[in-house]
């Protein structure tokens, strides 16, 4: 009797609980995870998403601090203005030029440096410390220093370039619309090589030495070893660092802003400096946001292509 009573009591308590159990399952799998994620969601929302949405919404408004009574929604007016803005197209072209040459030269020199640092030679530690130094110098300071280096009155570079026959006479290339952009590009290369060197060196050091031994026994030459073993191993790292640096450099206004201010005659104006001057010199936040959205879209498309290529080409 005792046993039966217990079973009866048990079924009585279990059966009515069923619906509640189902509801709690539902809660458990649909709602609960988000509760745990909520701090991160709130953080991402407030720090990234809300400013992004506000920024995009600005691009559809007229917000000029100098004409405070004209503010309001204007639809695609800013975009129409952008399309016919000659300065925007110049800046876009300059952005491509600046980003392409900065990234590719930084990458090539960084790769060379990483390969060098991956070997053993006398004084390596000191050399390594020196190589990574530019990364630690504030951009503002390095921009000023480079601007001075290009100044023929106090800097040596114009004289060296003239002696090498690259310039006809020692003048300041930062004042020449044809060559001015190479000034900030050189400063940027100096500044950005350590980044590639560090990351690629880390990737190089993670390649098992045995693979090189196996390749050596298989008869590979130095170039074959590099192209068939080293490069495929570096590829994931190369893809990610090149992508990051491209986005970074396309957005990187400091060097140009300090060295040339976008001039002469907009020859060094890139989108990010254009955004900066539009927003903080002309105080036209609406139009600045429109340019920024255009830059965002371009970089988004670029990143998608890189990520697709990476997935397509890299097997490790």
């Amino acid at each position, binding site marked *: 009797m005792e046993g039966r009573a217990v079973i009866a009591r048990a079924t009585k308590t279990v059966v009515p609980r069923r619906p509640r159990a189902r509801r709690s399952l539902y809660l458990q799998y649909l709602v609960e995870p988000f509760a745990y994620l909520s701090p991160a969601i709130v953080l991402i929302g407030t720090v990234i998403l809300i400013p992004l949405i506000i920024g995009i919404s600005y691009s559809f408004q007229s917000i000029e601090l100098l004409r405070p009574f004209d503010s309001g929604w204007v639809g695609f007016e800013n975009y129409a203005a952008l399309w016919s803005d000659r300065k925007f197209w110049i800046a876009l072209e300059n952005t491509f030029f600046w980003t392409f040459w900065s990234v590719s030269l930084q990458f090539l020199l960084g790769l060379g440096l990483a390969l060098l640092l991956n070997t053993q030679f006398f004084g390596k530690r000191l050399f390594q410390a020196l190589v990574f130094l530019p990364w630690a110098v504030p951009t503002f300071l390095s921009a000023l220093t480079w601007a001075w280096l290009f100044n023929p009155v106090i800097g040596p570079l114009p004289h060296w370039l003239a002696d090498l026959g690259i310039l006809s006479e020692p003048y300041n290339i930062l004042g020449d619309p044809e060559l001015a952009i190479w000034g900030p590009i050189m400063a940027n290369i100096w500044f950005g090589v350590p980044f590639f060197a560090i990351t690629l060196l880390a990737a190089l050091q993670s390649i098992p030495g045995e693979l090189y031994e196996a390749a050596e026994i*298989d008869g590979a030459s130095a170039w074959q070893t590099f192209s068939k073993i080293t490069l495929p191993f570096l590829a994931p790292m190369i893809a990610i660092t090149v992508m990051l640096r491209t986005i970074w450099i396309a957005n990187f206004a400091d060097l140009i802003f300090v060295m040339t201010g976008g001039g002469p005659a907009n020859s060094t104006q890139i989108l990010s400096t254009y955004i900066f001057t539009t927003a903080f010199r002309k105080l036209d936040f609406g139009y600045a946001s429109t340019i920024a959205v255009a830059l965002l879209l371009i970089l988004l498309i670029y990143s998608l292509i890189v990520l697709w290529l990476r997935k397509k080409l890299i097997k490790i």
Partner: protein
Amino acid sequence: MARIQLNDVKKSYGDVNVLRDINLDIQDGEFIVLVGPSGCGKSTLLRMIAGLEPISGGDFMIDGERMNDVRPRDRDIAMVFQSYALYPHMDVARNMGFSMEIRGDAAEERKSKVAAAAETLGLSKLTNRLPKALSGGQRQRVAMGRAIIRDPRAFLFDEPLSNLDAALRVEMRLEIARLHQKLGATMIYVTHDQVEALTLADRIVVLEGGDIQQVGSPLELYERPANKFVAQFIGSPTMNVVPVEGGAGGITLAGSKLTLPHLGDTSAAVELGIRPEHIDVVAPDQGMLKAVADVVEHLGSDTNIYARVEGIGPMMVRVHGNIPARSGDLLGLNIQPLNAHIFAADGTALRRADAIAA
């Protein structure tokens, strides 16, 4: 196919001498196994032969040609690494055909050779896979495939089976033996595993402390070890070594005399070595030695007895088949005199008379 000779080959790192005066003459098509305790320089010797490690002194010759300073790729030697060292970004076929790809051989030729090698090694269905999608044994076979495709003069193996489980190890061991029979190439094989060494080798090289202790066929090493180290290193379970008193006509062991006519003069004897399988168990009062069984292991085919011997100490005895011994039993032990080994104070074995005669 190659004859490999090492004449006084040395290796030192700074002032650490890892290998001293190694002399070896490996015949064309011979299967040589290098054994020795960890850190004795087996891998180093193999890597020196492959060309991955510079040779500090002496002459290393392949087919009579001095090869000390020849680059690995010009030595025409293939090596299978312990961790296989497969290229993780290449599929099985490309991994195996990599040496041909490097040489710039025609794609069709490469394909047919890879297919043939994959067939031999049972990898035909896996040629499109990346190494990460293979089991340990399959990876091991790919590593072997990479070696055989080159049709090299000699093969080097550095503990190729040590990452495999016991069953697979047996299978791959047979595979390697078959491969050697088929190709007839010179092979040098490093292992820790005695069974591998004893089953595969034409000759075994025992290395210890930077020196070669003995070179010989598996049976030779088992029956006539040159010294105490080899005696204890080869053979499982390990040989018992016990102190004895030497004498011109025989030795004295725990008070009883043992004559060893086959060894001639035994006055230099300090220790006696006897393998567990060369001790006979008899009734307690009939044996030359009295012992108590401490632990008895019944393995089915054999019985292992860990015995405490009166006046000597612990000894291990292995009896073929099952005997009804139990721990605590009193036993009589008889040492088979013809299988006894006698060591002098410096550890060298006294030569058997028949060995000297031969």
